[in-house]
């Protein structure tokens, strides 16, 4: 190509004026400040360093290490004698190729409480009954209570809060047989089993006992759900449990799963489109 030097100058000038788009293909993206491809990011953090030139230089170094160039410290403020808060701007050197981004989606959409209540009503024409317990040797009700109690967990209301749900919380150290009897008595749609203690694989023994008591999965069995901070997804297939929830699960996720799973039983997911 001839005259490329002039062309590059012209391009640079045009780019500086913001009149032509960034040459990156549309599938490769950078953060957007006020021009395509400018890569502008803002960040704030605190360093455990007294406010001053050392802290500022350290903050800039950190930003660079995070891949941010042309950084400027817009704001720094001492928080007490040994901490400094920073607001920093700069250009991220990184790009993201959207074609290479794979999204692991949960199998069910996350719904808000109103939506969940509405769907329960239209699916069942009654409230959805949930029986929950800590079974076997486990006396730690913190997990089951966080999911079931109105108070909920991390600002996310528990299942009792949902008008479409009827919650029976049996508490701790419930035997699998007692749980099974309660599920039948209450005509439970779902049974939640919490296992916090996993020392000596206590949860494995407890969950397999519960699974035995309820029998194999099927339309006649209530949905069997296990939860606990150290439970792993493989436990589901191992014991024929419908779903396992791990650390940090919110009641809203459990509720969303329940309406999704119940809808599956009532003829597929077609009516369930929600925000992911």
């Amino acid at each position, binding site marked *: 190509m001839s005259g490329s030097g002039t062309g590059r100058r012209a391009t640079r000038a045009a780019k500086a004026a913001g009149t032509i788009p960034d040459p990156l293909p549309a599938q490769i993206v950078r953060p957007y400040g006020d021009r395509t491809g400018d890569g502008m990011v803002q960040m704030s953090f605190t360093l455990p360093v007294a406010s001053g030139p050392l802290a500022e230089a350290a903050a800039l170094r950190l930003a660079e290490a995070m891949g941010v160039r042309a950084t400027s410290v817009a704001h720094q403020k001492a928080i*007490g004698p040994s*901490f400094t*808060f920073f607001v920093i701007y700069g250009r991220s050197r990184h790009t993201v190729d959207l074609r290479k981004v794979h999204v692991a989606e949960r199998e069910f959409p996350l719904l808000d409480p109103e939506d969940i209540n509405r769907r329960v009503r239209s699916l069942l024409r009654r409230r959805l009954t949930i029986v929950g317990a800590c079974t076997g040797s486990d006396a*730690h009700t*913190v997990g089951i209570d966080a999911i079931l109690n*109105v108070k909920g967990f991390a*600002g996310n209301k528990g299942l*009792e809060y949902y008008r479409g749900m009827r919650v029976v*919380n049996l508490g701790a150290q419930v035997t699998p047989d007692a749980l099974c009897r309660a599920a039948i008595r209450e005509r439970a749609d779902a049974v939640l089993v919490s296992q916090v203690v996993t020392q000596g694989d206590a949860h494995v023994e407890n969950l397999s006992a519960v699974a035995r008591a309820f029998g194999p999965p099927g339309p006649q069995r209530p949905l069997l759900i296990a939860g606990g901070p150290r439970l792993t997804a493989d436990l589901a297939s191992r014991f024929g449990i419908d779903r396992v929830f791990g650390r940090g699960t919110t009641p809203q996720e459990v509720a969303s799963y329940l309406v999704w799973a119940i809808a599956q039983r009532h003829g597929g997911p077609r009516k369930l489109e929600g925000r992911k």
Partner: protein
Amino acid sequence: MKKLSLDRGLAREARRLASAAAAPVQRFTEAHTTVSVERAVLRLLGVQGAGRRGIPIVNQVVDRLRAGVGLERGALLPVLRMARALNTDVDGACRAICRGRMPAEPDHSGTDAILRAQGIDAARTALAIIDARRAERDSMIGELGEPTRPWIYLIVATGNIYEDIPQAQAAARAGADVVAVIRSTGQSLMDYVPEGPTTEGFAGTYATQANFRLMRRALDETAREVGRYIRLTNYASGLCMPEIAALASFERLDMMLNDCMYGIIFRDINPYRTFVDQRFSRMLHARAGIIINTGEDNYLTTADAMGAAHTVVASQLLNERFGLEAGLAPWQLGLGHAFEINPQTPNQFVFELAHAMLVRALFPDAPLKYMPPTKHMSGDIFAGFLHNGMFNLAGILTGQDILLLGMMTEGIHTPFLHDRDLALENVRYVRTVAQDLSSQLRVVPGGLIEKRAAEVLSATVAMLRQVGEIGLFEAIARGMFADTPRPPNGGKGLDGVVEKGPGYFNPIEELLLEGVGRRRKPRPDGPAAGNGGGER
């Protein structure tokens, strides 16, 4: 701006109805005790420590006594009988009971009278410790000075007491007047108080006597450094309400979250258990000079803040009634409310002002605790920062006493160091720029604010009337508070409630009651009369 014209007759009626609704429940609480009340008595008499598998001595003793001789006469009398038989003290007797010894049945030979006199003496010693801690607080406040109101209330919640301490100290240096250490998720449902300093909790730090003491010492240091008294807050709630109150009284905590119905509604703790426990814990708080904080703000995190505003006021009136019955003075009643109306609502701020001014006018002597938005904090921290600024403005305009600082990262994570610092900057800014705004504004008579306040008060009266007709237990069973039905025989901890039998002995309660009788009947129109903070 603080002046709101209020229908005095209607306000009197609301108080009368609250008293009537509380009366049968109050009688129930006076006729019953709980395992936690009895454990608190033993703790107050110096029983400490835990045995095998971390079960506190007081739990072991009360459980064994209950199975062996029953709790109808209280736990202390059999313990004293054991001590006499073994020629040891209360602590020694408790340890013997843990080892399986069981006190003899009463022998009616007059020893009971001697034991009772001993018990009263021991209780006097315990209350003297509490009195000394209260005097210590008064003298520190005298020496260092009282922070100006509103007090700025901040939360720390790392789970590790040794991380909490520097954060709390940093917050105090940056302007916090009150530091609350959030408890670990689930502690309210534990029927025992853990022992020792703790470094692991779920989204909060366990309330233990050792943790109380460590934080108290640290905040006293910082108070001297910054030249103002820093208040320490924790939670006397859940199944161990009375015991936590006892420990707080011993370790000079200044404010305790303590609500007559919160545990029932939000934690599914049995209603009978909760009402009995709140009474004894409040009697201790009264003696210790502790300000209680009630939890009405929570109602609005479940129910709609416009539709359920009157449930907040109704609950405040009930909390006030039960508080006065337990001997709390009006200045100790930190009634709670919150800024939780959906910010998409036109005039949201105006209605928030109406609610805040109504509560201010109804409870002129109460150190009102105003809670920031949580329900409508979306995770958009920038919008959240503005929303919190509006909350601060409402609090300052309407003369709230305790402002809990909202975090822009509410609902995302426990506050970072700079979240807290930014929240303090937010409130300092609003307080400075709007310092005298309140005195420059008047409420338009018959306008939006007055109408809304009147509407909420009328709905409160209607609700309390219904509560009185069906009874408070039935009202709770029907879900009249926070849309959550709780039947009187449901929930956790009912098996820990015991009817007092003839000869029930609780010397702490006896001594505390001596002071209560005279104070618990406020003037019929409430503590407000003639105070000048009200309205015409």
